């Protein structure tokens, strides 16, 4: 594992000895070290409270870290001259609770950041939004408001909204956990097509089928520690010699 952590030009995200202690004293991440390659799909699994969300959120600095180092696309996140907003433009994020902007139509949700952050021309942004929404299967819903959409549709809009900034990597925090079972598939399908296109993805999920099928690598966390970092075959195969992981997986099934 050690040579994996060295920064090579192909690393999209490097995290070295990342520690996170919340102001209330909760030690959520303990020396988490791993690299995510360009185009890699990494799935994070682990019991509730193990620090999965916290880790994911440190990757675009929605949470700051207490110590350690994070390098995104060659840029040190905590260097003095790093503009975190610029960095975030390149990192799309999808939340469990969608977090669409309820006061804006579907189309406007997708267009807001390209217009106000990237400063692209309105004509370009309109046609790009249409392309993106068609891609996630919502071309007919462009002019309605998020509250009129089903959960699955909302999450697909949220993915389109994140993609509108043309990011090089996407973070997903339990994107299907708030959905009715019959809507999980439509969201996973969009994510699979993204993975197939070579998007770098970090996905926190309880969908083991998705992890097994799509992930290049699976991280298993427990109590803020990255316990297992391996390919899915070794995680979900019949024999895994890791007791905690074994226990976690048997609880889920």
């Amino acid at each position, binding site marked *: 594992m050690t040579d994996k952590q060295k920064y090579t030009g192909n690393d999209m995200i490097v995290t070295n000895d990342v520690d996170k202690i919340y102001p209330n004293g909760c030690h959520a991440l303990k020396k988490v070290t791993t690299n995510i390659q360009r185009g890699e799909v990494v799935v994070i699994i682990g019991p509730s409270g193990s620090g999965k969300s916290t880790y994911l959120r440190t990757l675009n600095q929605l949470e700051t870290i207490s110590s350690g180092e994070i390098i995104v696309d060659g840029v040190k996140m905590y260097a003095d001259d790093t503009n975190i907003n610029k960095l975030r433009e390149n*990192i799309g994020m999808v939340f469990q*609770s969608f977090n669409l902007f*309820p006061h804006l139509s579907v189309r406007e949700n997708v267009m807001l950041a390209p217009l106000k952050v990237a400063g692209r021309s309105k004509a370009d942004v309109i046609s790009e939004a249409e392309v993106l929404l068609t891609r996630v299967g919502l071309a007919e819903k462009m002019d309605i408001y998020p509250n009129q959409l089903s959960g699955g549709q909302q999450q697909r809009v949220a993915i389109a909204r994140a993609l509108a900034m043309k990011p090089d990597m996407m973070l997903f925090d339990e994107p299907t956990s708030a959905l009715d079972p019959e809507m999980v598939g439509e969201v996973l399908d969009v994510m699979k097509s993204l993975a197939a296109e070579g998007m770098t993805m970090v996905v926190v999920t309880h969908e083991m089928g998705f992890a097994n099928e799509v992930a290049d690598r699976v991280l298993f966390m427990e109590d803020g520690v990255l316990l297992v970092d391996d390919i899915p075959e070794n995680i979900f195969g019949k024999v895994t010699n890791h007791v905690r992981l074994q226990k976690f997986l048997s609880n889920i099934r």
Partner: protein
Amino acid sequence: MTVGGLMNEKTNKLKWHVLFIITIGLISAGIYSASQTINYKWQWHLVLPYIIDTSPIDIIAQEDANAAVNADGVITLTFDNGEPSRVISGADQVLISDGDLIFEGDLLARKEGIRSGVLIDGLYMTLKISVISLLFSIIIGLIAALMRISDNPFSKNLSVLYIEIIRGTPLLVQIFIVYFFLGTIFDLDRFTAGVVALSVFTGAYVAEILRSGIQSISAGQMEAARSLGMTYTKAMTYVILPQAFKRTLPPMAGQLINLIKDSSLVSVISITDLTKAGREVVSGSFATFEVWFTVAALYLVLTSTLSWGIQRIEKRLANNDR
């Protein structure tokens, strides 16, 4: 529910409506007969000229001149100092004759006309001072609310201090302080002093309304906006504040109505608003009861128009989302 049940409910409601109208009638009759016991003579017609002024308009000479009046009642003024002569036509009553020597201040003629009365002028002043104060109070309130929720202890403390001081002292006292203290130092006229006092006062309440509105927006909205690369300011401007404004519309409407009512206090620094106009009319007409009822009705017109307008806006926004 059966059709019969529905009918029953309808007649039942109607009964209460009738009772309501009867009660209002009785209260009015009570007020009337109470005024009879003190021998009050209601003279509503005395109030009318103070609402719509139909008295003839005096046309007065601006400077000394020689007057010529022709058969059609057109006055021509010629001046000794060589200025071009002035023609006054359309007068309904000419009070000078042809060839008269005119001195500055002389009454030349009268013209029929309809003007707004003193009470309507006062209403306009109340509206004007309320609208201007409203704009400033929203700006002040927004700044104070943003400072209040900021992490910076300096901004936060400053805002808390402002809000506490304003909410802990009477508006009347604040108006006196602004007018006599700040007004003297900065040489403010009455109107400006009134606007300053009302905006600073209302701003503190607007700040608290906006703060609670902003904090009621789920944290996920800010996170989603920031994750797209927006700065804090952009996220506030395009994502948080539009939602917060909408959510705070009902309490804001209440505050706005309070502002209109509170503006009556500026009459103490001799701004001729609706209340001050009422006081002046009372001393001119002696129709005390009628004038104050009229003043109350005019305030009611302002405030109910406003709350109706805001309800319309709310309905329209509600159609969009949520």
